[in-house]
């Protein structure tokens, strides 16, 4: 009896152990593609970039010399880098504020049960699926000094500004073009969140005498705040990654007014052949993106519903 019991007690852990191993193997098999992908395309390149950032890499001369933190020290005295950080700040600020405000406004409008809302949803979402370069080239024509928007304004006797040749209007132009390209995606995310707000809560507030604004700020906005967090993170990161639009529309000009950090990084690497210094800038960009994302994540408890 005792021996049977002991055999039984010894067998169960063995079976459980075998089951756990099979279970673990299955789990590893499932996560393997993602892990390998992340290693090959994120972790290893990231490590390589950090390694490159400690070197002076002259592609033409085919030299790769360890210089330690020299590239990071050079960043401190690089005036053009400081200009690009300021340009990035204005660009990201403009894109984030305008994109989130506009997409939320559109989502609220298109969440109404009005005729034609489906058509407008499609219209606002269409730019999201249009090729970015094609979208930018078309805007390049629209923003010419003598054609496009200015040609239209001229019909009414209005002389429009030379949009892409003035520091301020060039920055406004690239912000607007970027926002119009992606506002549809955020609009859909907000629309989805708005439609998940329980109608009975709205109804209860309405019965309690809450007006439309009060219901929006006290019920709707808190209820969609998790989506707001997602949209904010995506938009901030997206704005800091903007490159093609600047490259095609302004080439970083006039002057350096639209040379955002990614464009400056590209220029250092692929135009000036300073791959080591460009790697150091990309590490800086990584740190900025990481810090902003962590900041948003840490502050979520204060403003995201379900997180407090």
């Amino acid at each position, binding site marked *: 009896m005792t021996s049977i019991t002991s055999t039984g007690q010894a067998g169960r852990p063995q079976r459980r152990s075998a089951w756990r191993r099979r279970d673990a193997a299955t789990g590893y098999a499932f996560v393997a593609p993602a892990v390998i992908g992340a290693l090959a395309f994120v972790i*290893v390149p990231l490590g390589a970039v950090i390694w490159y950032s400690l070197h002076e890499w002259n*592609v*033409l*001369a*085919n030299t790769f010399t360890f210089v330690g933190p020299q590239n990071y020290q050079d960043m401190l005295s690089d005036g053009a880098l400081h200009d690009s950080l300021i340009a990035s700040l204005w660009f990201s600020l403009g894109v984030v504020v305008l994109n989130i405000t506009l997409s939320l406004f559109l989502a609220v409008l298109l969440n109404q049960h009005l005729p034609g809302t489906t058509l407008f949803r499609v219209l606002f979402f269409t730019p999201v699926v249009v090729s970015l370069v094609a979208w930018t080239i078309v805007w390049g024509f629209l923003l010419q*000094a*003598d054609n496009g928007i200015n040609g239209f304004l001229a019909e009414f006797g209005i002389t429009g500004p030379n949009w892409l*040749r003035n520091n301020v209007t060039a920055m406004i132009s690239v912000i607007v073009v970027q926002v119009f390209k992606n506002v549809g995606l955020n609009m859909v995310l907000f629309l989805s969140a708005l439609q998940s707000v329980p109608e009975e809560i709205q109804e209860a507030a309405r019965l309690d005498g809450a007006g439309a604004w009060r219901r929006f700020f006290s019920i709707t906005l808190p209820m969609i705040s998790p989506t707001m967090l997602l949209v904010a993170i995506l938009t901030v990161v997206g704005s800091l990654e903007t490159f093609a639009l600047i490259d095609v529309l302004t080439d970083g000009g006039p002057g350096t007014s639209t*040379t955002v950090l990614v464009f400056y990084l590209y220029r250092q690497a*692929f135009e000036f052949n300073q791959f080591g210094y460009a790697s150091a800038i990309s590490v800086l960009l990584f740190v900025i993106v990481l810090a902003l994302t962590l900041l948003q994540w840490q502050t979520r408890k204060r403003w995201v519903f379900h997180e407090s």
Partner: protein
Amino acid sequence: MSPQIRRRHFLSMVGIGALGTTALAACSGGDDGDEPAAGPVDLRMTVWTASEDHLGLFQEIADAYVADHPDEVSSVTFETIPFESYTTSLTTQLAGGNPPDLAWIFESNAPEFVSSGALVDVRETLSGTDGYDFEDVGESALELWEDGDALYAYPFSNSPFVMFVNTDRLAAASQPNPADLIASGGWTYDAARDISAASVAALGGAGLVVRDFDYMNWTNLATVWGGWDAQPWSADGSTCEFDSPEMVAALEWYQDAVFAKNAIPGPGTSADFFAGDTTMTITQISRASSLDGSFNWDIVPLPAGPTQQENIVGQAGVGVLAAGQNPQAAANFLAFFTNPENSASLSLYFPPPRESLLNPETLAAGNPLFSEAQLDIVVDSISGATTKPSHANFAQVDTTARGALDAMWSADADVAAVAADVCEAIQPLLEG
């Protein structure tokens, strides 16, 4: 999770990471390229032309070489990289460990490539090849590609800048033909400006366009400031001369022609001579292929400025990459590609540096649109011409100067002050 299991997991993750790194290194690295291949090799040349005629001719020459040297070369591939991103793509290939064996190089990047050690000295191979007739290659054409006794590329194309004129617009605006002004010494930049402004006033459209400048590619303005005997930096490349009186005068003339005289389209304005709505344009003769016969045209030399008349050429060289797998085989192919017979074939499309080929008869075969008198102008425009600006640190100087010059392209700009700002911005880069 126990410490042992955690450690095992960590080690397995490190293992996967190491494997990934090794795999990537294997994919991207290749060998060092110092060991030449034992058998016949495949050569690759990067070019910026996508013309089927050009590529067909290159392949024809390459096929003949492969047939004659089956033990040395098994194939030659011509890889087209878009003109706009050519140098960037080429250096990316170098950075990625995938260099071509031979590459076309812009004149503006020549000093950078020559001084960096990116190219192989090909003088001995070229001059030592039987029947090459190295002495036939113009000395002035080689200057940009030399460093001491070493020659790092062959300047296969020397395309001059000339003025294309829409004679239909001139006639419609009752303006004189520049060809008639040349004889009387009246073909000057002021005359070009006044004719252009008058044609715009009468017909609309655009007057004078420095093609491909677009208020960005400022080195194309060398075709203008040459008339003022101005240059962006000293001959040794160490001192900025944007703020010299000659350069300031030339830039003031240009700025005035844009914003006061309305003779030159302003920034952000689209104008295309070959569409027929522009009176005259400064561009290279190779652009003649864009003429579709929809209007009458002529070519004349670049106008004279207050100081002189200066001809400008845009050069393109072809060099052997030191990082390539088979530099000697590539140099041998270059010697065949540019020998007298093949140079004659290439001159159909690319004005050659060989003096024996620099005549209207040779150029006529490849430029059927030009009359003999026009080809005389082309030949005269090549002889003794100045090459567009170049510098050992060109990429940074170019971008920095472009950004600083942007302030000049407005009606109320202080040209002298902006020119001084340009010098302040690029002087540290010129000093390297």
